[in-house]
């Protein structure tokens, strides 16, 4: 049951996929994200970011000064129309 549990809803990435990838590649949170696409969906990782972080944290030394997964604008979902809208 735990294996099939969804962690990233947007990209439908399971707990099992994350655990296996983390173990196989002994990877950082960023690499775990890029390999599985967890946190790369529509919501921008707003829900699963910390879970992806935690699953990689045991394998890497957490840097106190670096945020492991980068934040990029737009930080809230916005339509392409609004994003590139001409204000005039």
């Amino acid at each position, binding site marked *: 049951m735990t294996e099939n549990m*969804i962690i990233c809803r947007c990209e439908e990435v399971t707990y099992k996929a994350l655990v296996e990838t983390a173990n196989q590649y002994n990877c950082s949170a960023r690499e775990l994200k890029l390999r599985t696409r967890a946190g790369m969906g529509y919501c921008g990782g707003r829900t699963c970011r910390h879970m992806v972080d935690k699953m990689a944290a045991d394998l890497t030394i957490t840097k106190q000064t670096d945020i492991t997964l980068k934040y990029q604008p737009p930080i809230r979902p916005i339509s392409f129309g609004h994003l590139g809208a001409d204000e005039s």
Partner: protein
Amino acid sequence: MNDVIMIGAGPAGISAAISCAQKGLEVLVLDEYLEAGGRLLGQLYEEPNGSWWNGISESDKLHRQAMNLGVQFELNTPVNNIEKLGDHWIIYTENKTLSTNHLLLATGAAESPVPVPGWTLPGVMSVGAAQVMTNVHRVKPGERGVIIGVNVLSSAIAMELKLAGVDIACMALPKMNAITNQQAHPKKVLDSLLHVSHMAPSQFVKMGSKLMKNDFMKKLGVSFYPKNGVTMWDIPIQLRKAVVNIYGNKQVEGVTLANIDTNGDLVAGSEENVATDFVCIAGGLYPLTELAAVADCPFYLIEELGGYVPLHNEKMETPLNGLFVAGNITGIEGAKVAIAQGTTAGLSIAQHAGVDGLEDEIKESIQVVEETRDNAYIQFHPKVKKGRKKVQDRWGNYVGTVSD
């Protein structure tokens, strides 16, 4: 262009707006929610002196005071990006782009999820969402729920749900996995609850906390933890049971509970089903720092403050010129501390904007923040003062390296 823009209309943002407006600045407050007040809106609890702290009326008071001083509010307005252009901060929202010389980030906190099999079913929500539904929108999240995750926030909200006539079947721990870890460990959960035991009306919990002064006694406390849990406000709190599954066809119909040992490991064959129509997951709060991150503010990971916090000093300045922070973005604490920090931030901004003679007032306001922290009824982390000290030390180091 506004003199000042506050992002976040919670207790910190509004109180900062009030202190800026009192010094003659033109202030605009933005918030993504449809009402002013932020997380304060959901709060309702009895204070030690017997009076009630009602978040809706407290929010209303702050909001009205700000409006009377001429503060403008734009609600329903999410900010999706900020950037520095010359001396200006540019703020991007869906419908327009704003600019200011002084920007306050008072974005508050967000809740950590608790992944348990079935947590993606409709009817599962964060405990804060259940609080907002009940206290702000006056809609029952369901008739009978289970809360997964036992901590300060979930205990306080369980009591609020109870007051609203919502039945809570029990509070229990999540099943242990690579993510739930600490929140699934009975002894660690008990440790984290001991410093708030004064909130518990149950004599058992009060007596228990006195007995459990040292680790050995704490372990005993968990070992001999009653099979049926301890009740608080008639809600069974199960530290020796974990939710292993949330089940239902298309929506929540119940949870499967199993007994766990003192380390959080499952006792095989102890599973039982509990019927519910909603489930709350409670993973605690962390500072909501996205905008400080896109602005490239330096960060530090400080566990006592709930996660990564943007570097700041006691005057609530960040190392970025014209960027200020206040409230839970600087660390998880109660609304009263946020209000006090907001006042300091507002005065600091006014000083930056050229208002003279504020130094003493700022010092006093920093004193008030500390006093408020010392007198706080609820502390989210027992070592919050240690966490605050760490930030100040980091600031000292950072300023030192930059000027060298």
